[in-house]
């Protein structure tokens, strides 16, 4: 009985990807800075079908919210703080994002290209 429960929990953990921490090692990290309510860089190129760890650093004293309807992401980053957002894997295309608190200036996009980006 208890063994079958344990197996069920493991199965559940596997399905929900709770055990997916091993994938941290090979997840590419992309850095995005917020300065004077602008995103630097304002265009991020990332490979297709790959999970990306987006490191967002807010250099402004004011809070900002990273938001993208296309990526289904929304996260508050307080002043002088940094945070991590996982995105993807994504099919090739353009995914605009913006800072919800200052959307007129804080605009950017993620360009997912089919081939490896040249850096």
């Amino acid at each position, binding site marked *: 009985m208890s063994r079958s429960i344990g197996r069920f929990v493991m199965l559940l953990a596997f399905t929900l990807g709770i055990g997916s921490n091993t994938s941290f090692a090979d997840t590419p990290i992309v850095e995005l800075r917020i300065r*004077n309510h602008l*995103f*630097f860089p304002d265009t991020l190129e990332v490979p297709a079908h790959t999970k990306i760890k987006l490191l967002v650093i807010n250099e402004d004293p004011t809070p900002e919210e990273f938001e993208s309807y296309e990526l289904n992401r929304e996260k508050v980053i307080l002043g002088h703080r940094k945070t991590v957002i996982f995105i993807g894997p994504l099919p090739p295309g353009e995914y605009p994002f913006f800072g919800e608190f200052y959307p*007129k*200036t804080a*605009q950017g996009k993620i360009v997912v290209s089919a081939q490896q980006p040249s850096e």
Partner: protein
Amino acid sequence: MRSIRLFLIAATLAVLTLFNFVAALQGYSSSLKEANKLFDQHLRQTAELIARLYAGHPIKSLDDESTLAYQVWRGQELLASFGIEHTQPITDFYPGFGHANFDGYRWRTLVYYDQDHRNWIITAERTDLRYQLAESVISHAILPILLSIPLAGLLIWLIISHGLKPLRMLSQQLKNKQADDLSPVVLPELKSELQQVSQSINALMSRLEVALNREKHFTADAAHELRTPISALKIQLHNLEEDISPDNEAFQQLRAGVDRIQHLVEQLLSLYRSTPEQLAHNFCRINLHQLAQEVIAELHDKFEGKQQIAELAGQPCMIEGDPFALTTLLQNLLSNASKYTPAGGHILVTVNAEENTVYLKVEDSGPGIAPEDYDKIFKRFQRLNNKPDGSTTPGCGLGLTIVRNIADLHRARIEIERSCFESGTAFIVIFTRTED
């Protein structure tokens, strides 16, 4: 929707706010779109102007006041620039409008290619400044809409309150009505919506009045008509007493029965007389203390028969009242006390004045009444079976109804509590005091 008024105000205000604000939002969006078009047009005109100027010889600057910046490029060579210190191109050389982050700001850019002279002209405007300008203009137009909502709310509140005034007056009139007041409801100005309501209420009132009158007269007439045959019965009983031995049990029971019928009929009549319609309003100033003394003396035989001690305490107090009715009230309260108090018990009558009231308190040392029965005892023909042996005391159960009718007539209040004796009940009738 507990209150019609609250519902009307809240729902109206919500609809007004919702539509006004959404409309304002739409207005804002389309204004901003138009403003953007104008700003873009300005960028284009400036670019064309610069193109023409740089066709010949370059000049220093276009306009010192302008919020626009520009660069003129020929190949990789920066011919001229304004508003920007940097020597990199603001954006890529693709003709058309676009956005770019440059020099710590976000810019709306236009790249214009002058084919004749192979010049690239980039005109740009900081988006934060552009929106700040557009926004301050438009949001000043929106602010009044926002501020007008509380004012509209106040007006809606006043209008709806005013509109519901006839309804409020109708309910106020119905609320203020005395229980026995069956006169029609009159509204100063009858709104068409309320016409049916007030007509129906008034028709109901008059039907009720007829029915109540019929009931009252029937009781009074029947009681009155019964008096004569009962008197005849009493005489016959008296005559019979001489022929039969007095301790004949059947005869004793017959006499007790006839006495009870006579009491019932008398009580029914005094109940009828104690209703406001029947009592002649011949109010006068009465010394309640003295009246109590008279009634105690009148009922002396009754107390003596059960070896009960009846005492009167307090001081002379004047009230406004009907002497006959108040005598009936005292008689009923005292007979009740005597009836429900076992032989050898105590009955204490107190008449005293407090700040602006005069109270009459009748206390007995009987078994007492349970607090949950206090409301019941004033009902007609209601009698409580609270004797330990289960037997009942003779009586018809109208006494306290009469007491209450008379108290109501004098706008007096009746309270019941435990008596000062070990057991028993205290009836307190509280009158308004007449100024001495």
